[in-house]
């Protein structure tokens, strides 16, 4: 009976969150095949450890943490720790046709992972800085700094030419 309940919970979770996890995995790995493999491995690991999930309401952050660790284990061979050291100012190369969808996609890809990851979690997942900090195992202040700098870097490239034209 408990097994059936857990199976139903798992299936609901897969239907609700596999797409979000895939997008997060894609921006982590920047490869569609790897992204799907990461999602599959994440849910496989989650199912093995379903008994340890104490709060079903927190299942999505739990899955994101698993996915992040799977990515580190399978593809990076190291944890994706965000350093709390103050980073250098972030500068992205300017593009000939900034603002267009593909160019913006390229700019996001050029962001260092420590900036791209919290940005994806916030824009796609709608998480607040404090929640992202908990998922990434860092401080709220560090997340705020990286999000501010990531948006400043993108804004400098995509907004300036528009201002110059106007």
């Amino acid at each position, binding site marked *: 009976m408990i097994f059936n309940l857990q*199976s139903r919970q*798992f*299936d609901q979770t*897969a*239907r609700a969150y*596999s*797409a979000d996890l*895939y*997008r997060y995995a*894609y*921006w982590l790995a920047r*490869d*569609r*095949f790897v992204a*799907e*493999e990461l*999602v*599959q491995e994440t*849910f*496989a690991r989650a*199912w*093995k450890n379903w008994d340890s999930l104490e709060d079903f309401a927190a299942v999505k952050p739990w899955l994101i943490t698993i996915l992040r660790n799977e990515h580190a284990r399978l593809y990076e061979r190291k944890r994706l720790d965000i350093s709390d050291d103050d980073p250098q100012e972030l500068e992205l190369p300017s593009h000939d046709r900034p*603002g267009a*969808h593909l160019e*913006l*996609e390229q700019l*996001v890809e050029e962001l260092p992972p420590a900036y791209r990851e919290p*940005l*994806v979690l*916030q*824009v*796609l997942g*709608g998480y*607040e*800085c404090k929640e992202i900090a908990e998922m990434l195992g860092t401080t709220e202040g560090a*997340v*705020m*700094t990286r*999000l*501010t700098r990531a*948006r*400043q870097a*993108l*804004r400098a490239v*995509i*907004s300036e030419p528009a201002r110059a034209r106007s």
Partner: protein
Amino acid sequence: MNCLEFRRDKLADPRHLPPEAIAHMNDCAACRTFAAEVDENEARLAAVLDVPVPEGLAERVILRRKTQTRLSPRLGMLAASLVLTFALGFLQWRDVGSQEYARLAIEHVMHEPESFTSTRLADPQLFRNVMHNFGGELQASLGKVRYMKLCPVPEGTGWHIVFETEQGELATLILIPAKRMQAQSEQATVGGWTALARPGGQGYYAVITQSPDTLGKVDELVRQRVRWRS
């Protein structure tokens, strides 16, 4: 709150401004303009990050859960012995199914006839990127790409590509990740289609055409113009 503090808060989390930041924005025209610009960029950013998700992803996750049912230790040992028995049997049977990879590719093409009549993602640069991500570097063009689609395959998702060669012949190229072929190549003919599968990139690829002559030419073309990373 001053303008600098407002802008820092807005850039850190555009959708969750504290009450004092909202109050400042209501009183400051410059910060309202700034906020509108950030919101506009945010919408564009959200559209970029919202990449397409492969069809049937959740169903494949659930299917895997059903085949991965957690077992008690005793049942686990029993299952392990059964797996070993079947694995030994499969090793003996494996050679019989040596056309599996090529045959599956033909079946995939037969189930997607619209790939020959419609144009989809016909972008040479996207094709180059897809090949690169799969582990193949295009040394020269294979022809005009007409159709590209990310399709569900047994172990994930693969790319289904239709292109027209310089001689005007249509050919399908299917990129299947994760599966490793033991043989150098496998060929199959089913329902008027002929296919050749070879190991390459992150798994294997298959070329499918309607005539063996065309298959030979396209296979040669792919071998000449794609360098596979090991």
